[in-house]
């Protein structure tokens, strides 16, 4: 059974093995990158990635620093 979530504005179906934010980051291949996650409008500190539980319909924003003035 797949779970549907919204990542950076796009719908994404992920397997139910992906339980926490950390699992999602691993799945996307970005876990080692310097990034910041917002989970349902709640900004997560890095330590919370392993505890924050994903459920159907969750909205995830994954952002990072890019060049800017």
């Amino acid at each position: 059974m797949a779970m549907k979530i919204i990542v950076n504005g796009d719908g994404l179906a992920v397997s139910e093995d992906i339980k926490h934010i950390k699992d999602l980051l691993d799945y996307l291949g970005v876990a080692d990158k310097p990034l910041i996650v917002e989970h349902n409008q709640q900004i997560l500190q890095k330590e919370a990635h392993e505890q924050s539980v994903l459920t159907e319909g969750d909205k995830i924003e994954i952002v990072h620093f890019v060049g800017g003035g």
Partner: protein
Amino acid sequence: MLKVGSYQFSSRLFLGTGKYPDFDIQKQAVEKSGTEVLTFAVRRMNIYDPTLPNFLEKIDGNKYAFLPNTAGAKDAKEAVRIAKLAAASGRCDMIKVEVIGCNKTLLPDPIETLKATKELVAEGFTVLPYTSDDIVLARKLEEAGAHAIMPGASPIGSGQGIINPLHLSFIIEQANVPVIVDAGVGSPADAAYAMELGADGVLLNTAVSSAKKPVQMAEAMKYAVQAGRLGYKAGRIDKKRYATASSPEEGISIGS
């Protein structure tokens, strides 16, 4: 030393990280500029291509203080959210408040900028608002607790230099916190001029990143900021309408 909140910098040049031809040139430019403060924007990551390189992976991040901006925010609420996202990186508590109120000129929205500044100061951030060269607004930003004021010299990325030195000098004279001239600098002369007016620092990006040779321009800007600062401290001469000879009048009739 330039002191902004609890931070201290020996370089008075803050450098933006946007629009460089490539990361190698950018890295060299950052090094040559001697800057200690780099600005960044906060954006969605491309999760479909996580292999895309990021400049942060190319530099020793520990050597620099990060000054993320809230560019993209249209109001105070969005600016506060971006600031909090940036802070969650664990990398910085400095924030450049940038709330654009006009898409054509990229001039800031004064009301939302002031509101965001108040909120972020209350949240414990070190707040550096990008503002126009409005003297009253600069004072109100300071009263709101801004740790530095960053008036634009001319529109962002325009390279028009300092179009209102009078207003800038009023802001500098009035301020009790550092004034960092941000936006519009086009050449080393502009950067030196800002410093000569008494600015505490200069923040620039396009003038270096879009120069024909960014690395050389970065170095030129380093010296321009230093020269301008020294000139300011040395105190320039008053302007006179007519000439005054530099060579002595005495003993002028040599050989006649």
